[in-house]
């Protein structure tokens, strides 16, 4: 396959950043000392920075953490997403890590309905004939009572347009993954997280307030690859839409919660919801754009443009 399985993240990150640094320095006609002085002036994270370190970064011997890279990039008016998404090698390595690492770990097919067949990613818009059907399916999976409006409430079609539903289908009809998200304003989102307003009010709020947070309600794939792929869809949306300052999750799916915790994302709050005498936990997460970009796993997922992800075939 031509890929070095374990070498990938560090070496490619190092390569991308060293190229960026050399390019930016020559574009701004800065010496290594000039760059050191500029960074020193702009941020206290670089108080002890010396030209030896800069030289090592440029030669790819060493590289600063993504957190520091982020600060350096911002000094020059770009962010890590700009830098990493425009590097073909990094995008390819990210794709590779998502698509094949699961297969290497475990060759056997373990899902009763899914056999590593090809699957297709599709954005299901609210006018789509199957929108309602798919929405229902993913709400049933999610099991979050807060997402199911009571029967008395009339849902206007206009409200649903703000929801983005993405599905992964195999054999053109079998749903093997989905994600459901929406861009809203943080003020309304916190009201929603605290149960002060319901899902319909939250969706309605998008008409009055400028959206600044992307909130994910459900995200799932039957295989790890599809699961990651679904995550990459909204991370890419976040990365490309600069008006979005935060990423948030509001979910009752303990598997998604577990995955986020594995990715070192701190939980914001847990709220118990009582339904039919059963207690269901509602988990909320929120992180800023800079936290997302400094998180290696999330950065890797975010650089994958949705259209570039090719469906895999059996037997890879």
């Amino acid at each position, binding site marked *: 396959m031509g890929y070095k399985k374990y070498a990938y993240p560090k070496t490619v990150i190092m390569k991308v950043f060293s190229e960026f640094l050399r390019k930016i320095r020559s574009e701004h006609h800065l010496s290594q000392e000039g760059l050191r002085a500029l960074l020193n002036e702009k941020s206290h994270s670089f108080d002890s920075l010396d030209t030896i370190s800069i030289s090592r970064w440029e030669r790819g011997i060493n590289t600063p953490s993504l957190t520091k890279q982020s600060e350096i990039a911002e000094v020059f008016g770009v962010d890590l997403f700009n830098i990493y998404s425009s590097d073909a090698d990094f995008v390819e390595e990210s794709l590779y890590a998502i698509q094949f690492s699961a297969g290497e770990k475990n060759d056997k*097919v*373990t*899902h009763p309905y899914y056999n590593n067949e090809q699957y297709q990613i599709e954005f299901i818009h609210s006018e789509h004939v199957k929108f309602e059907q798919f929405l229902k399916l993913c709400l049933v999976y999610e099991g979050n009572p807060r997402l199911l409006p009571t029967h008395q409430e009339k849902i206007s079609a206009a409200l649903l347009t703000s929801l983005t539903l993405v599905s992964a289908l195999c054999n053109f009809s079998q749903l093997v993954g989905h994600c459901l998200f929406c861009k809203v304003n*943080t003020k309304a989102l916190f009201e929603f997280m605290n149960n002060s307003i319901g899902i319909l009010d939250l969706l309605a709020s998008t008409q009055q307030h400028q959206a600044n947070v992307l909130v994910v309600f459900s995200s799932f794939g*039957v295989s790890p690859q599809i699961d990651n792929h679904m995550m990459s869809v909204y991370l890419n949306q976040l990365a490309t839409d600069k008006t979005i300052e935060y990423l948030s999750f509001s979910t009752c799916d303990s*598997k998604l919660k577990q995955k986020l915790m594995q990715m070192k994302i*701190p939980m914001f709050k847990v709220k118990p919801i009582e339904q039919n005498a059963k207690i269901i936990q509602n988990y909320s997460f929120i992180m800023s754009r800079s936290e997302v970009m400094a998180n290696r*796993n999330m950065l890797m997922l975010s650089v994958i443009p949705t259209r570039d992800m090719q469906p895999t075939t059996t037997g890879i």
Partner: protein
Amino acid sequence: MNILIVDDQQFVREAIKADLAENTLHNKVKTFEAENAQQGIEAIVAMKGNIDLLILDLKMDNSDGMEVINFLSVQSRYATIPLAVISSSDKRTLELVNSIACGLKLNVVGVFEKPIDMDTILTETRRLQSVSQNPLEVMATTAVSDYDITQLLADEQVLLCFQPQVDMKSKAITGFEVLARMYDENGYIYPDTFIPLIYEIGLNAQFTKIIIAKAFKLWIHEANLSGYTLSINITAQDLINNDLINFIIRQKQAHSHIKLILELTESQEIMNQASVLNSIARLIINGIRISLDDFGKSYSTYERLDTIPFNEIKIDRSFVCDIDTNEQHRLIVESTIALAKKMSVNVVAEGIETESVLNILDDLGCDIAQGYLYSPPMEGRYLNAWINRYEHREVSGNDK
């Protein structure tokens, strides 16, 4: 999909197989059977653990399911086999077995009462699978204990985030609380992870020193910030370190215009030591204000009120965030504010996320508000932009 059924009763195995046939659309399920624990273990070994679901009866003639559970737990390569325990034993036994199996770190789908609902078990198994083979694990996620905190501290891989504090009445920004993050090549590391590690290796004073030094640099560098108070967390443990106290006092003396507030968190056992009280006295004499952090979280705070000349009380977010719906929390907050008023000290409420909570606090006479309603913690480099947007009412919280 390979399913191994371990049950001594042929009828039960037949029923499970019939249920499986009804519940799986495709003909992809292969079932294997064993009628006692020993046969079950032999089957697991013969199948090399290539089992997608192990349905295990707890109580069998001449043997029991615990033998299989113990076998799985000692053979780590089999511990990941999704395990569904079934039984007609009483609920308490089932709960016990569930906690044992989870404690043994087995991949437990669940413990189910007979007759089992195959559909539920299959759904649960599917959900478990989606994460258990998470490829992100391949991307070397770090276990908590794997952080080399000493090295990260030596490299000053510490980042300051800030959360604004706002005057309830005038809506003007009064100051910022420093919230520290550490970071490595995988991303941010949060206090609930690193603080216990720092205290475990006794580097707390060094850590606090780094925070204070970095915060002061920012406040000195950005002249327009100097009007705002700078609140930094400190523990009683820190207060017994004379070196640190001297450092803080020197910093304050060198930059007397910086309005430093130290937020003191609980640590009952050493709070009453003479050296701690001595340190507090020295800080106060040098114009550093003391705030009692996480107020209300324990009773000891009340006992401390008459020994420490503090300037401010901070009500813990766990009480504040739901005072609009939690009557008990509202009462605690109300009485805390009343107490602060009597003592003529400021009250800061943390954890304000919604306007309805803010309005109640305003009615109760709280002085200063802090919380996600205004802003989540933000990196120092974004402070000025936020202040600017807040003053132009482009961010939430300033709708006077």
